[in-house]
């Protein structure tokens, strides 16, 4: 037990050391920046994530639920593993746009929307209040426990408000935040003194906590193995070593997710990680050093919790185990150290939080409102800095007051962890809009606003209002029975969803409407052009996206300088503009600021008062004219030039590929043609040699055997004549074929009675039919007049008739020729026989040159093998067609189809091919 006066003195002394450190760092900016400019300090300042929630609350949770406290630190570990993909993009985007808070970031991404910035600010402030209350409660309770009997129930706060340590902590820390968090207005909002103090606090709390851990392990027990063995022997502690049931699993995943979002979306984490970051490379080391810090501070949580369960009475306040253990062991110095560690944890969080929230309230809520409502009053002030600073300080006091009130009247009955998770759940509502805003160019302002609003509404109904009702400040009936007694609307079992802890339940519903809102609305509505430009700037930040200037803005340079000076201080503004003019190699005496200079001024202002306000302010001094059409075209050209170039390259390579393909195909075709030619020549060679050989050999027999008997002699003569005829026919047909193929054939188109053509052909072929005693029937009817070439058609019909005569069986053969008009524009000549027919697989092949079907060994070729090939070419020339089908008489049915009106002439090229 410690005297209250002594403990208060120690606390104040510690805070004074922090003041002094912050003051020294701020006083000597050069020294300071060297000390601050290290990844170690950056990492330690990030560790303000570990608040008194970690310091006291984790042990409290672990003493009841074992390892379940851990996901809150695993989420951030995973987030930092994604440092290069996610965090660095946020850093880069924020630096490029001089972002000073999460509200500014979202407002800027979604078309510099003041409304969205204000919405985010309101949600962030409301969400932070329980969290601030948690810190104050921890300080207040720890002070109370240390100065009173440890077995006293910690919930009973002192009735006398002036003796409440929480109040004095709040006052002192608000003072600290005012001094170092809003000492001056600077572009970029770096608060090096504050960062140094917070880093020191992180170090102190880690050391104090580790000291308790080691004391528990080696002071109270015989090493950690001993501790674990003793704990394992107690049956009631067994659940602390197990992972738990399905509901615990769900909580685990929920806490991991929510802490993943919180490490980025908590206003104070955004402040230390993004706004206070002076060098992007510090993030590299923090990617592993920060998780290492988290690991170190959590290492002793479970052992301390187990020791608390083993050594302290069952009804001891679990959130005070860290503090109570040294006290029970009468280790007063360690107990005081624990108090300082806990105070550090609280103080770090409170200072950064109030600073971040006050910046948000000033830049994204109050200033835009003032600019809209009282622009004249604002314009008349020469120096706006005092106004800005007062707004921030008032905001700090207001936020702290809210936190204190929440602690006093609401937070009493809840464990530390559940209060903290309440806040995590609130800030997680920013995460969908942030993530989609960074990676999905189509996410729109309205989508983000709807998502955040809906998610926040669900959070308020399912978590915040029940917690207030629980404290008796609202009628509690709706918690148990639902709003208007509708059981569907029970805040802890919305729409009948049960089986989830309140945090997981709330996160599920809020994220459902939030993510659904952002994506759904963004898909439904198209963003405005200015919004799209901002979106591209954020999403493509690593591709060197530059702010596209849709307007040509110019302004008198002195006006611009005065404007910036009113918010940043006149000497600073003067210097900033001078440096910029120098950098760009402009004439320092230039009186007119060009578009880029105006943009620079806007960014300077954005660093001090937020993006949305900066835009409104700059707009008040610039002369703005929309770019002319050709200028917009030029800008578009600039940006699309490279795209165009890429596109052309791609087209060219595609064309090359296509050409290559064509060449390959042509080559294949040529090879095929070459092969066909070789085949043709060898076939022709063979076809010509066969009759020649027989003529020669029979002639030789006749020459060498003059005394051959007359019958044989006549027979041989007959063979020679027949073979000569065949040779003649073959040569004639080959000539025909060559003529048609080379396109030399001329057609004489004239109206023609097709029936007479068929009759003439039948008469010419009559001898063949009579020889083989085959019947030839003509069924011509009234044949129409056809415009075509008589000789060519006759040749085709003659070919078909001679084929039919050859194929039909002698003596009982029967060939029918018929003519019919088809579709009014075609005439069809059909030649049917009752021979063996043509099998389907040969119906195309027979129209190729020298292709005859039948057994090549036994069947003597009846023809030259060229007739059908020639016929097909002729028909192509005349615009008709020739094919073969099954005849009803059992044999083959050859059909020729001709157009009634000639369209020939244009066909010659096809024929030549």
């Amino acid at each position, binding site marked *: 037990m410690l005297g209250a006066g002594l403990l208060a003195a120690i606390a104040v002394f510690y805070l004074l050391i922090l003041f002094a450190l912050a003051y020294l760092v701020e006083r000597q900016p050069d020294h300071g920046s060297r000390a601050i400019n290290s990844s170690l300090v950056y990492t330690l300042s990030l560790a303000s994530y570990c608040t008194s929630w970690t310091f006291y609350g984790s042990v409290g949770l672990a003493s009841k639920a074992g390892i379940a406290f851990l996901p809150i630190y695993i989420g951030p*570990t995973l987030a930092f593993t*994604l440092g290069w993909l996610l965090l660095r993009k946020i850093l880069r985007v924020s630096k490029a746009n001089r972002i000073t808070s999460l509200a500014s970031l979202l407002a800027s991404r979604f078309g510099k929307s003041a409304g969205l910035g204000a919405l985010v600010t309101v949600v962030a402030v409301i969400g932070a209040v329980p969290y601030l209350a948690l810190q104050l409660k921890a300080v207040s309770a720890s002070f109370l426990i240390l100065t009173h009997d440890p077995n006293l129930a910690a919930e009973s706060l002192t009735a006398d408000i002036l003796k409440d340590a929480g109040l004095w902590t709040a006052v002192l820390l608000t003072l600290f935040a005012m001094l170092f968090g809003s000492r001056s207005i600077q572009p970029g909002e770096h608060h090096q003194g504050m960062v140094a103090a917070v880093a020191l606090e992180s170090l102190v709390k880690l050391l104090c906590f580790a000291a308790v851990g080691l004391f528990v392990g080696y002071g109270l027990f015989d090493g950690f193995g001993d501790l674990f063995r003793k704990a394992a022997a107690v049956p009631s502690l067994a659940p602390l070593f197990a992972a738990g049931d399905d509901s615990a699993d769900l909580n685990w995943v929920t806490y991991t997710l929510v802490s993943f979002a919180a490490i980025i979306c908590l206003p104070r984490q955004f402040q230390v990680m993004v706004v206070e970051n002076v060098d992007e490379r510090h993030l*590299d080391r923090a990617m592993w050093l920060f998780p290492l810090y988290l690991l170190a501070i959590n290492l002793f949580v479970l052992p301390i919790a187990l020791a608390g369960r083993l050594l302290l009475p069952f009804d001891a306040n679990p959130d005070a185990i860290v503090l109570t253990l040294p006290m029970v062991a009468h280790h007063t110095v360690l107990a005081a150290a624990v108090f300082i560690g806990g105070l550090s944890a609280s103080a770090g969080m409170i200072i950064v939080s109030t600073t971040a929230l006050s910046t948000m309230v000033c830049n994204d809520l109050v200033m835009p409102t003032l600019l809209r409502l009282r622009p004249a009053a604002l314009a008349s002030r020469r120096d706006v800095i005092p106004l800005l600073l007062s707004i921030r300080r008032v905001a700090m006091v207001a936020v702290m007051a809210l936190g204190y009130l929440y602690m006093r009247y609401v937070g009493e009955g809840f464990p530390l962890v559940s209060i903290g998770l309440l806040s995590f759940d609130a800030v997680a509502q920013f995460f969908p809009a942030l993530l989609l805003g960074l990676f999905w160019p189509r996410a729109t302002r309205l989508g983000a606003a709807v998502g955040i609003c809906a998610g926040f509404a669900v959070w308020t109904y399912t978590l915040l209002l029940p917690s207030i009702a629980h404290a008796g400040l609202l009628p509690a009936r709706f918690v148990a029975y639902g709003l208007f007694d509708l059981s569907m609307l029970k805040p802890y079992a919305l729409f009948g969803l049960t089986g989830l802890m309140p945090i997981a339940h709330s996160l599920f519903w809020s994220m459902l409407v939030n993510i659904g809102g952002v994506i759904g609305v963004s898909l439904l509505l198209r963003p405005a052009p200015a919004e799209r430009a901002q979106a591209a700037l954020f999403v493509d930040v690593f591709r060197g996206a530059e702010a596209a200037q849709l307007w040509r803005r110019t302004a008198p340079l002195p006006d611009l300088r005065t404007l910036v000076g009113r918010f940043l201080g006149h000497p600073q503004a003067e210097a900033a503009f001078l440096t910029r003019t120098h950098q760009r190699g402009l004439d320092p005496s230039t009186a007119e600021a060009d578009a880029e200079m105006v943009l620079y001024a806007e960014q300077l202002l954005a660093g001090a008062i937020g993006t949305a306000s900066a835009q409104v302010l700059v707009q008040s001094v610039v002369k703005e004219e929309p770019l002319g059409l050709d200028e917009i075209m030029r800008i578009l050209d600039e940006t699309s030039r490279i795209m165009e170039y890429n596109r052309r390259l791609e087209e060219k390579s595609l064309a090359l590929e296509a050409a290559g393909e064509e060449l390959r195909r042509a080559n294949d075709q040529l090879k095929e043609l070459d092969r066909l030619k070789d085949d043709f020549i060898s076939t022709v060679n063979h076809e010509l040699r066969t009759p020649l050989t027989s003529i020669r050999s029979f002639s030789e027999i006749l020459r060498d055997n003059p005394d051959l008997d007359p019958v044989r002699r006549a027979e041989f003569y007959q063979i020679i004549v027949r073979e000569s005829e065949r040779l003649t026919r073959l040569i004639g047909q080959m000539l025909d074929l060559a003529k048609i193929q080379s396109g030399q054939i001329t057609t004489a188109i004239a109206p023609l009675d097709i029936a007479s053509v068929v009759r003439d052909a039948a008469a010419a072929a009559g001898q063949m039919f009579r020889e083989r005693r085959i019947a030839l029937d003509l069924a011509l009817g009234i044949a129409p007049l056809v415009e075509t070439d008589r000789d060519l058609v006759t040749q085709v019909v003659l070919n078909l008739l001679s084929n039919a005569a050859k194929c039909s069986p002698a003596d009982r053969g029967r060939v029918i020729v018929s003519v019919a008009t088809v579709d009014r524009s075609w005439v069809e000549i059909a030649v049917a026989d009752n021979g063996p027919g043509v099998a389907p697989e040969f119906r195309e092949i027979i129209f190729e040159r020298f292709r005859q079907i039948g057994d090549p060994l036994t069947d003597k070729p009846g023809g030259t093998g060229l007739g059908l090939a020639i016929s097909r070419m002729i028909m192509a020339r005349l615009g008709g067609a020739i094919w073969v089908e099954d005849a009803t008489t059992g044999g083959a049915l050859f059909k020729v189809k001709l157009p009634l009106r000639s369209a020939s002439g244009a066909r010659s090229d096809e024929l030549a091919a």
Partner: protein
Amino acid sequence: MTEEARQRDKLLGLFVFGVVAFNPPLLNLFSGATLFGWPLLYVYLFVVWALLIGAVALAVERRRRRNIGPPDD
């Protein structure tokens, strides 16, 4: 594939590893048991955590030593 992209993919892989290793159902495998008297779940979580941090540190610090910036995009 550039060196930068390789490093980035390595970190992405570590992230996925972390997501799997730190969550149910894999986590439940170690529930309840002890290792030399130490609760296995506790040992498992902290060992995997340390390994993950070590792997990230290796990937990041190698890049820092070579003085190349992290991958752009």
